[in-house]
């Protein structure tokens, strides 16, 4: 089973990369582009997990312990098809 962990800068935390991307989009004519947040995607192949719920629980544990820094980042975990 494969899971995907999405990590994004926590709301209220300065994201200069997002600001630069937003500016870039606007200058390309995408005037609708507002606030942009740039994050990370981590795809993880899991072996020997019972079911989707167990996979998501494991992904959350991984994110809490290593993949995300909860002081500045939020995350969510999905099972990939």
């Amino acid at each position: 089973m494969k899971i995907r962990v999405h990590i994004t800068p926590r709301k209220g935390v300065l994201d200069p990369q997002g600001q630069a991307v937003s500016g870039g989009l606007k200058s390309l004519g995408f005037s609708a582009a507002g606030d942009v947040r740039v994050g990370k995607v981590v795809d993880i192949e899991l072996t020997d997990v019972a079911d989707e719920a167990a996979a998501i629980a494991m992904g959350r544990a991984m994110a809490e312990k290593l993949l995300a820094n909860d002081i500045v980042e939020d995350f969510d975990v999905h099972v990939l098809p």
Partner: protein
Amino acid sequence: MHFGIVTFPGSNCDYDSYHVVKHVLGHEASFLWHKEQSLEGIDCVILPGGFSYGDYLRCGAIARFSPIMEQVKAFADRGGYVIGICNGFQVLTEAGMLPGALLQNRGLKFICEDATLLVSNGHSPWTHQCPETIVAPIAHMDGCYYADKDTLGRLEERGQVAFRYATADGQESPEANPNGSLNNIAGITNEAGNVLGMMPHPERNAEAVLGDSSGAWVFRSVVQSFLEGASA
């Protein structure tokens, strides 16, 4: 006094730190490979600058799981002196030994320049010998100090801000803040004061050939603190 300098894969300021404490200040110094499990005989641990584990995932995120870090934590909990410089500061925040986090610089650029630091709390074990300002080079991409409002308030209240970015004449100012750090913070201590993290490199300005050598006062301060503690 015996300094232990931790070498992670990717550390690159370990020799600079070793040189300063051993050859400039004349103390004992040993390198500690990150897989070592003992800090026996060490009086002060230096987590040096560099790019531990290639800065993969987040700066310091992998290094905090190195075997030696358990020992470093226990050492700090017993009151042992620990300084994290640049990447070492990032490791200390990732390890939860100091509050907050270091984010990418506001300007999205790696910055390499001298920084004048205002000593914000001159009573800490790391600053009590320092003049009002010291000069220490910065060389980082992720040096923007962030902590939530409550944490920041507590840091200020308890005098845990050791250094702030300042103009060359020693005025704290947002214009002198190179990276967007909240409250112009360049370095903080833990509540007890025995753990210091700072983004600027005091070891790179510790002898006259490299500048005004004012970075050496950080190390001299902790030596004095240690000796006073040992004789008390």
